[in-house]
């Protein structure tokens, strides 16, 4: 066990990537994720890696595609507008079944928006984002330790499923420092017989996403579908903190879940019976867990830093009859624990038939 050391979220993420055997970074500067390329431009050469500041995010993601097709563990990082530019490449990677990691330290949108923390990219991240029938594997850390651990996990899942993965975090998680343990699991890089390294002593291979023959593309889509169903069965990550006979269940992810954690402590100290469920994998979303837990609780409070995106997934997953309410702050606002507590108290008082409404924090 290593000693605890204090690291910034972005740096912990970069170290996690290195611990996962990744040696290739391609990226384009954009606030608030610049700590990642700045750190890696110094760090990667020390471990025999390659750092390229690309001419655009469009180029970054396609360099990632090339490096992934060559069999390497590779990564890019960006924020909102840059992630939008990467959607073409991400769709091609999903279609070509190439692994790779994209880090989104989100900012506020739409448009140039702002650089404060936001969770407004949830929908883009979890629905695929680019064209076609696909998903990214999306993991959402809520601490500096998880910025490290989940980055390692994301590389592992991307390789296992031959699908691009995303770390969805924000400026709070990127800029925050916390003590963490750097305890990487033993590095086992998977065999990649599909990778292109030249047709030496083997048949020439092809990586592509174009299927024009009759029925080929339909078959390919069903193949991808099976992969996503398997992800949903086997790779869901969720944290729960439940009590007997809960009055309210809180659901929140990422940095926002830290505010919810504080509200939970306040509520419990006042004798309110509150449960907490945090999706860690946003795709695959913990549908089953939400369904099972909500069966025991009549009321669910979703807290998000957007106008209600994960809320859709929660409502799709709720046990029939269970009602949800959303406490929302978009545009860089951060729900304060006191505001969340007030909403919890409202819900407790409200009786059984609460309306499914959106409340501004």
């Amino acid at each position, binding site marked *: 066990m290593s000693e*605890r050391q*204090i690291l910034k979220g972005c740096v912990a993420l970069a170290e996690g990537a290195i611990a996962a055997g990744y040696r290739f970074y391609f990226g384009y500067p954009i*606030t*608030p994720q610049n700590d990642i390329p700045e750190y890696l431009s110094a760090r990667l050469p020390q471990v025999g890696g390659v750092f390229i500041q690309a001419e655009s995010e469009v180029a970054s993601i396609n360099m990632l595609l090339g490096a992934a097709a060559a069999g390497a563990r590779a990564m890019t990082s960006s924020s909102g507008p840059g992630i939008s530019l990467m959607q073409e490449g991400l769709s091609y990677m999903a279609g070509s079944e190439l692994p790779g990691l994209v880090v989104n330290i989100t900012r506020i949108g739409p448009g140039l928006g702002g*650089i404060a923390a936001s969770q407004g990219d949830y929908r883009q991240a979890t629905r695929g984002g680019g064209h076609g029938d696909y998903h990214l594997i999306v993991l959402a850390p809520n601490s500096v330790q998880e910025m490290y651990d989940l980055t390692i996990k994301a590389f592992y899942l991307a390789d296992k499923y031959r699908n691009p993965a995303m770390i969805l975090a924000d*400026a*709070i998680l990127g*800029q*925050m*420092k*916390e*003590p963490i343990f750097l305890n990487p699991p033993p590095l086992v890089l998977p065999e990649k017989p599909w990778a292109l390294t030249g047709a030496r002593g083997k048949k020439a291979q092809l990586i592509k996403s174009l299927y024009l023959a009759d029925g080929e593309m339909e078959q390919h889509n069903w193949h991808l579908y099976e992969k996503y169903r398997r992800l949903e069965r086997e790779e869901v990550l969720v944290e729960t903190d439940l009590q007997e006979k809960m009055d309210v269940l809180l659901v929140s992810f990422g940095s926002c879940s*830290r*505010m*919810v*954690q*504080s*509200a*939970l*402590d306040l509520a419990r100290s006042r004798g309110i019976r509150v449960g907490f469920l945090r999706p860690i994998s946003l795709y695959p979303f913990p549908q089953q867990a939400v369904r099972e837990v909500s069966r025991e609780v009549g009321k669910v409070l979703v807290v998000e830093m957007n106008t209600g995106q994960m809320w859709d997934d929660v409502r799709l997953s709720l046990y029939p009859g269970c009602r949800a309410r959303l406490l929302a702050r978009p545009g860089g606002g*951060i729900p*304060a*624990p*006191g505001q969340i507590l007030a909403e919890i108290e409202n819900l407790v008082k409200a009786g059984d038939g609460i309306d499914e409404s959106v409340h501004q924090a």
Partner: protein
Amino acid sequence: MYYDVILSGFGGQGVLLMGDILAQAAMLENRQVTWMPSYGVEMRGGAASCTVVISSKKIGSPLAEEPCGLIAMSKPSLLKFQDKIKSGGLLIVNTSFVEPEMITREDLKKICLPASEISYREVGDYKMANAVLLGAFVSFSRVVTLRRVEEALDVFFREEKQKLLPLMLKALQRGSRYVLEMDGGS
């Protein structure tokens, strides 16, 4: 145990480093700790602040709605944050840059010390004001021991920066002594 403090001033005054050192000391005391900077589009010269939360339990929010303490090294930072401090909380002001008359809160424990002047006259370098304030803060609040803070310095003053270490230590101790010599606070 739970304590949250905002450390604030101008960029370049060492506000973020002061928070880093405090966080490191808290970790050495086996506490949970978070350090969260404010950040803006501008790179230099603007306001700088960070929030440090220290707890014996898992920390939720790394931000402080009602901080237990505030260290203000500049006028704008005092004006921005003093109303947020929890009633009965602690306010430490660097009176080398801030007139004590600007303090409007009556319900706080206050330490007003000319940290930059002390740093210049007694440590030999005005830039150690942050350490003077940190020394005063930990000696008054006792969220960590001064000894831990001294230990924590090791991480930040290595190699070519090592020559600053004795100055930092002296400044910390000077700030601490200011509090101990104070008439029980004001």
